[in-house]
């Protein structure tokens, strides 16, 4: 297990290096640079700024310097936000995105497993048909639509009861997090529901379920002890990438609900070609994704003994 974990971490580091390099090259391949905007009014100012930020050096040298700083955990200073360190941006805003993301994935996983198991239990009956209809909605409707609808609903509910039942936008308390994280997790929840349903239906026909019935176990015991745990495996597998997708993909929801998350800076940086912020956020998100996938692999090992001992 230790060797396995170590191997996974090592390959994860290689992946992060690859992400950093690819982003660096792609970023520099985009026409223009961070000094294209109104700040660099004359060629002299532009030259001074370029020298200050090291943009006058050859790309290869910039790459080596950048990588060196990155290894030391320094992502540099933002081009567009005066003297603000990229590390500070991440430090200030990532916890917000992470909190939102974790809550969203919790909703998605619990909901997905619950609804999936329920649909399998009531296969081809009314609960199954209703839930599967909602699942198709959840998968096909983009999150900004749900975000706007969610807000509208909140406004109406708040007006109806004439109290602030739940805040419509903003950040700060747990109440602020509930609706945005539900909206953010909805797509994933729908996906996991479908996965869980098909997985459950497959397990029902397994020989060991027949054995469990022949042993005289109660239906509920068979359901929890024998079906659920085996059916969860495929769900856990996709959970890693889904966590990353939710935390990085949350910027639309963050925007609609005016949440000061990292997503906004990520998108803004790309628009403004803010080199250091692009690199910082991308590498950080990349590392986060890699870490989550490794974590899920390790968790998987605890659920499925066959993985643990290989």
């Amino acid at each position, binding site marked *: 297990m230790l060797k396995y974990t170590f191997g996974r971490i090592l390959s994860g580091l290689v992946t992060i290096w690859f992400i950093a390099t690819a982003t660096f090259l792609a970023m520099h391949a985009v026409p223009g640079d961070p000094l294209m905007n109104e700040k660099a009014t004359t060629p002299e100012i532009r030259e001074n700024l370029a020298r200050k930020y090291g943009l006058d050096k050859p790309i290869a040298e910039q790459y080596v310097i950048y990588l060196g700083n990155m290894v030391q955990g320094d992502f540099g200073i933002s081009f567009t936000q005066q003297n603000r360190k990229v590390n500070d941006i991440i430090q200030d805003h990532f916890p917000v995105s992470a909190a939102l993301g974790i809550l969203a994935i919790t909703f998605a996983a619990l909901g997905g497993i619950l609804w999936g198991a329920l649909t399998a239990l009531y296969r081809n009956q009314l609960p199954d048909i209703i839930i599967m209809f909602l699942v198709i909605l959840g998968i096909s409707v983009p999150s900004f639509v749900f975000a706007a609808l969610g807000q509208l609903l909140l406004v109406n509910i708040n007006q109806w009861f004439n109290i602030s039942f739940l805040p419509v936008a903003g950040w700060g308390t747990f109440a602020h997090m509930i609706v945005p994280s539900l909206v953010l997790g909805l797509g994933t929840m729908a996906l996991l529901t479908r996965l869980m349903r098909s997985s459950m239906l497959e397990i029902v026909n397994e020989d*060991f379920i027949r054995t469990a*019935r022949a*042993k*005289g*176990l109660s239906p509920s015991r068979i359901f929890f002890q*024998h079906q659920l745990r085996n059916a969860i495996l495929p769900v856990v597998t996709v959970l890693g990438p889904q966590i990353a997708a939710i935390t990085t993909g949350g910027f639309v929801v963050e925007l609609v609900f005016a949440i000061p998350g990292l997503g906004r800076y990520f998108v803004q940086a790309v628009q403004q070609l803010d080199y250091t912020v692009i690199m910082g956020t991308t590498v950080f998100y990349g590392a986060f994704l890699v870490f989550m996938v490794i974590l899920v692999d390790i968790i998987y090992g605890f*659920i*499925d003994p066959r993985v643990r*001992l290989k």
Partner: protein
Amino acid sequence: MGMHKLLEVSNLSVEFETYGGVVKAVRGVDFSVDAGEVLAIVGESGCGKSVTVQSIMGIIPMPPGKITGGSAKLKGSEILGLDAQAANQFRGKEIGMIFQDPMTSLNPTMTIGAQIAETLKVHRGLSTKQASEIASELLIRTRIPEAQKRLHQYPFEFSGGMLQRAMIAQSLACSPSLLIADEPTTALDVTIQAQILDLLKELQSRDGMAIILITHDLAVVARTAQNVCVMYAGQIVEQGSVDEIFYKSAHPYTLGLKLAMPSNVSQQNKKLEPIPGSPPDLFSPPSGCGYAARCPHAMRICHKENPPLFSDPREPHHAARCWLQAPGAPKTEGLHQLHLIASHGE
């Protein structure tokens, strides 16, 4: 209790609803098992032997499966068509069951010990500690070496033969009076087969437990059983003691099976004779005898009317579903010749 047979099945009929129509998988099966008896139910794939016992256990998937008639009485009380809660009073407790493929018949994410202990906890209300002590004894009884260590292992760490032993240990947990073994050796290689059969016989003779052994292998029958039911196309076509079935086969199908079986005495000029044709379509079973189309002795009546079970008054327990056994039926030269050929093969 002495009045009742351990298990008495009468007129059991089971159907499956499929897209292609209704399959009449079991069509009026009667048999009984005494305490301590080993009964083999033998027949080819699709003859309904597994469906028969799985219906008795209430573990056929319903729907599409449906028990359309008959009864099964365990020690005199009806067990057919019970709900899960009522059925669990006998499943795993009075009747244990093992299956064809031990590799897939155990939960891959639970330790062997936990799976055996589960039966004990559910039926006998034992604590985890007590249950796992008994589980360890059961593994020793089924000859699994290093039982203590094996208890904490998962099914994928076991070989096929060891898994079947673990399955047997699990089914014996509550000392059932009947063990149903549904093709217990089919998925195992031949040397392991012999070991598993020996183990079953040993446990049966020591604990006085009855066994219903489902198999398509006549060699397994000869090795283990006292009484035999031969099934064909959802019906029992011949039943009797092992000797009666093997040496006085009364149904042409039983004879056909024997001729198709290799013997361990090498014989230069004896060829294995496959039974020509294939079993009838159970979507619409023939109105006559199910075997008539393949039978070398078929008469006109065989195609028209399904025969009842006939038996010789001198051997009341030996019966065959064949018009040739009807009183006054012509004694066919062919059947006698077949007998001769078959018995020379022994």
